[in-house]
């Protein structure tokens, strides 16, 4: 499917989802509550078959914390981007997709470690690089006077 067909496909799953056609990928803005069911459908639908998650990144947008998922289908060779964000900075929670794509397991641990986003139903959510005495360094409001040189 090309980007336009993907847009129609997403609309046929859920009319309310916001779809943008970006420079490279079709981007779907999905609220955290709908993320898991949409991801499941994208993985299992015969026409879509997004079986390969090639990137997962956590982003601090200032007010919101978000996660960006890059998916590809090894069968149909098309790609899509899912974006979800939450405005809760104290206790951000997003559903884990590790049950759908195994590779999400390590990626989500990394995002939890560096941005503090908790992934519900993750099989093994522990810090990855840093120990628990650290804050969440990839957040924009993270301050470390000793180790970070700011200009």
């Amino acid at each position, binding site marked *: 499917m090309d980007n336009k067909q993907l847009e129609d496909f997403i609309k046929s799953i859920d009319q309310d989802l916001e779809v943008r056609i970006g420079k490279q990928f079709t981007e779907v803005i999905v609220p955290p509550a709908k993320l898991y069911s949409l991801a499941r459908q994208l993985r299992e639908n015969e026409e879509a078959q997004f079986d390969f998650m*090639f990137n997962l990144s956590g982003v601090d947008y200032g007010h919101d914390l978000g996660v960006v998922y890059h998916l590809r289908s090894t069968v149909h060779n098309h790609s899509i981007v899912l974006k979800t964000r939450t405005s809760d900075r104290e206790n951000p929670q997003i559903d884990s997709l590790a049950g759908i*794509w195994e*590779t999400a397991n390590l990626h989500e641990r990394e995002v939890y470690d560096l941005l503090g986003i908790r992934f519900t139903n993750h099989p093994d959510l522990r810090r990855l690089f*840093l*120990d628990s005495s650290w804050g969440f*360094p990839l957040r924009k409001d993270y301050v470390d006077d000793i180790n970070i040189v700011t200009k």
Partner: protein
Amino acid sequence: MEEKVEIIATDEKQEFIVNMGPQHPSTHGVLRLVVSLQGETVKNIQPHIGYIHRGIEKMCESITYPQIIHLTDRMDYLSAHQNNESVCLLVEKALEVDIPDRIKVIRTIMSELSRLQSHQLFWATFGMDLGGQTCYFYGLRDREMILDIFEETTGGRMIVSYNCPGGLMYDIHPNFQKRVKDFIKYFRKKLPEYDTILTGNVIFRERTSGIGPLTLQDAISYGITGPSARASGLSCDVRKHEPYSAYDKVKFNEVLFSEGDTYHRYMARNDEMRQSMNTIEQLIDNIPEGPYAVKMKPVIKLPEGEYFQRVETARGELGLFVISDGNKNPYRVKFRSPNFVNLGVLNHLAKGFKIADLIAIAGSLDFVIPDMDR
């Protein structure tokens, strides 16, 4: 560092927890594996990483795009050229800069030389991990020649920083073409020796065939890329699927197997060395004339938006995801490094095999730890 190692609860009495690493020669760096053993059989592996976590993604947020190159060198230091290329391609794509053919061809040759030396080092250390000390000397002897070629042109042996947004740091050295051709002539003779000493060795075959098989479905689900995935039959070569630089002008085969065991992961890299040499031979006599760099603005600012660029490093797909807010520093940089993703499959592969097989399996995934930690 205070850290609790969570021991997997088990009903079976005779389970040992063995700490392999971080200072263990076969982990090729500072990777720590907490291995649960029953007798000699691996029950579970918990990888612990982060010993050389430098926060490269955080650092990128406070530096400019041309400066990022000097950090990407230090991620996967055996694929420094390809790592640099990912940043350059992304910046050039965002600014819609046309790159002359000369630059594209030189970048491709450099990337393939880099892949070749990486696979040589893999061959050398993989042989040594499995008890073949001679392999190490053979591999490093030949790799040294590529590093000398790098040194002559770029000034660096491993940390090369040769690509920069808009082209190359400097033109190639006058000796470059001759030395590359000499090297390929030499290495074509030496490569059969590699097969004689290791590939055909009965002990080596016994220790690798059928060990740690990875099915195609698992390779896809775990997001494995590079030679490790191609050994399981997953066609994932970025050079074929999304050709960049001069890869659309050269003919080479994507090395694919279907077995997916340790032996075929080894063979995939072994055959890629031949493919790399073919690629270089097609280009080395046909480097077009032209400038080695395009003039870029002194301060590079990407238009607001999100960008993604993939390149094929020696270990798999490196994805570079950049969010720009229009300033000279990126807002967010994420490196999807192949080693980090490939680490996720280690437990799945080694479970049920002996601890000696764990060395073979981990070796065949060809980890470079700084790329995992970033």
